């Protein structure tokens, strides 16, 4: 997988919660790469491990196994999985995260100026008289006004809070941002504002983005390539256009089909998936999707479902796509 175009290479990443003989396998052998300057979508339903992967990359959770190579263009490659927290700390100015819930991720007792101060202080950026102009510039960059710096989080709407979360991530001039469901808590009319903001910032600043979402329409709109997860494993990786036009894995097909199309002229009956997500503590043998797969066969229980490259840039875990 080593390729100079890659900024991040995740290989065999695992995160188990709980000990004993049946830990919860939240992330179980996930491999993918993120290229310099691209937006990679990470999609899946609840329990697929998508948020956990975001937290592992930012080391807000400790991986159980596997590697996460970080290959900046201006420095030596590092394995994010094996760094200690103190070794990782300087990297936090390069790798940032935007959280899902803008209500829970801002300290209610801090003025927005102090929220941004804290980020800048931590990395010794814009000291002294450069500080306040920098804070005002950051707020304007995300579409807020400089006088907003003196306010508290509760004085803002959800969309504005998410803009503050984005400003905080941008404060340290990162090159890579993990956006963990940044739109889920927002109303649709506000979602569009934030999507446009993310697109603009990415173009202006040359950011690389890992966009974690369950909203397939937004992912199609925003992302260059998509990784589809199910029960902590990769089902399919493909360029966005190919994935949506021609999904190869039965799970991807089911997911795309289940998303309601906002057009009453296109009502259709769909193949419903049976049942619920299996327990991640007792995943099925072979393919983890086989208990709900409309095409499940006996071979699915024994086949190796490590994703294989079926055509350049397209990976799928279904053994049928040989």
């Amino acid at each position, binding site marked *: 997988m080593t390729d100079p175009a890659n900024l991040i290479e995740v290989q065999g990443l695992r995160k188990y919660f709980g000990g004993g003989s049946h830990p919860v396998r939240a992330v179980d052998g996930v491999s993918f790469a993120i*290229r310099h*300057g*691209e*937006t990679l979508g990470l999609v899946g*339903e*609840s329990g697929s491990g998508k948020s956990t992967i975001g937290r592992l990359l930012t080391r807000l959770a400790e991986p159980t196994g596997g590697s996460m190579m970080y290959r900046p263009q201006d420095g030596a490659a590092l394995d994010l999985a094996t760094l200690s927290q103190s070794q990782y700390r300087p990297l936090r100015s390069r790798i940032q995260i935007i959280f899902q819930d803008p209500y829970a991720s801002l300290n209610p007792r801090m003025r927005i100026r102090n929220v941004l101060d804290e980020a800048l202080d931590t990395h010794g950026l814009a000291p002294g008289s450069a500080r306040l102009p920098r804070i005002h510039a950051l707020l304007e960059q995300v579409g807020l006004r400089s006088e907003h710096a003196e306010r508290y989080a509760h004085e803002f*709407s959800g*969309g*504005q809070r998410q803009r503050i979360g984005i400003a905080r991530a941008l404060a340290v001039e990162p090159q890579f941002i993990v956006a963990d469901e940044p739109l889920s808590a927002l*109303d*649709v*009319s*506000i*979602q*569009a*504002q934030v*999507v*446009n903001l993310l*697109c603009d910032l990415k173009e202006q600043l040359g950011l690389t983005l890992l966009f974690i979402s*369950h909203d*397939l*329409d*937004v992912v*199609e*709109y*925003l992302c*260059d390539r998509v990784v589809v997860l199910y029960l902590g494993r990769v089902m399919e990786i493909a*360029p*966005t*256009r190919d994935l949506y036009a021609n999904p190869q894995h039965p799970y991807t097909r*089911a*997911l795309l*089909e*289940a*998303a*309601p*199309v*906002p*057009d*009453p*002229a*296109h*009502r259709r009956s*769909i193949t*419903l*998936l049976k*049942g*619920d*997500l299996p327990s991640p503590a007792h995943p099925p043998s072979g393919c983890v999707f086989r208990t709900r797969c409309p095409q499940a066969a006996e071979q699915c229980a024994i086949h190796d479902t490590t994703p294989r490259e079926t055509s350049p840039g397209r990976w799928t875990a279904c053994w049928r796509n040989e």
Partner: protein
Amino acid sequence: MSAIKATSRLEVRGLSTSFATDAGRIQSVADVSFSIAPGQTVALVGESGSGKSVTSLSLMGLHARTSQAQMQGEAWFVRRDGTRVNLLALREDRLRALRGNEMAMIFQEPMTSLNPVRTIGAQIAESVRLHRKLDRAAANAHALRMLELVEIPAAAQRVHQYPHQLSGGMRQRVMIALAMACDPTLLIADEPTTALDVTIQAQILALMGRLQKETGMSVLFITHNLGVVAQYADAVAVMYAGRIVESAPVHALFADPQHPYTRGLLECLPGVARRQGHSLAQQAGFQLFSGPATPRRTRLLAIAGQVCSPLSPPPGCAFAPRCPKREGVCDCAMPALQSTAPDRQVRCTVLARQPIANHHDPVTA
């Protein structure tokens, strides 16, 4: 919707609800009128704070006493025996006899709506014992049949389980079983699939559609998801800041949205932008999805600004501060809901003056 009024199962006229807050009374719902025919699904669509949930709670009489809700207007509900009752003027004991019986409700979050310390079977049985006067054994048998009706696997075991032992999708099925237990003629579903994943959402919507077809019940479907509306509803009422701004049959609304808010709402969906925008982008010479460095995305059309505070509503149209079509008159008075076609209504002064003139240019913000 006027054509079906004579036969509608529920007809709401001029519903207004206000609440007492520390900062004074706020008007959460104002002048809401709609009707639902037997077997019909009407969707109330709106963003947070638009008043769609307050509307449903007003109809069910479920406002907390401490909120000091004041309701005005009428809500005529046709009972099974053919009599018409005004839900807003009904005595509490009479309303209680209807609730969970002839009219039932499904809530967004089943975990907070189900009793955590009682088995799901007991909760369903309670409803039929109360309303149908069944004895314990018959009620338990009915509970089991209801769980089978909503396609819960191994219903005979599940009936003895507690809500925490079930997945989110299963809990929502239990909520539906509970709502359907007394065979209601009106089902109010308040964001029933919002907390669910898309594949589970598809299961629940298919189940609700099947039950509706079998029983002929009317459904008031409250949601913010326009995709679900397009796939599921017959008629739509779009709410903004407590008022209906547009109501129309579902095909007409999506094919030709008239109110600037409805149009903005549809155009800011990435899925809609893709279908409409990509052809435009390609005509303009953009290469779509060719690589990270090339310009390839049409910007999403966003509605600027945010919803006004209910504590200080603007003097005129509530959407005016965000509206691309705003004119001087918009700030003078709240526009009335006016018919633009036999079953379509729009609340917009500008549209009313120049009916449906050049409304095909995009809302920009």
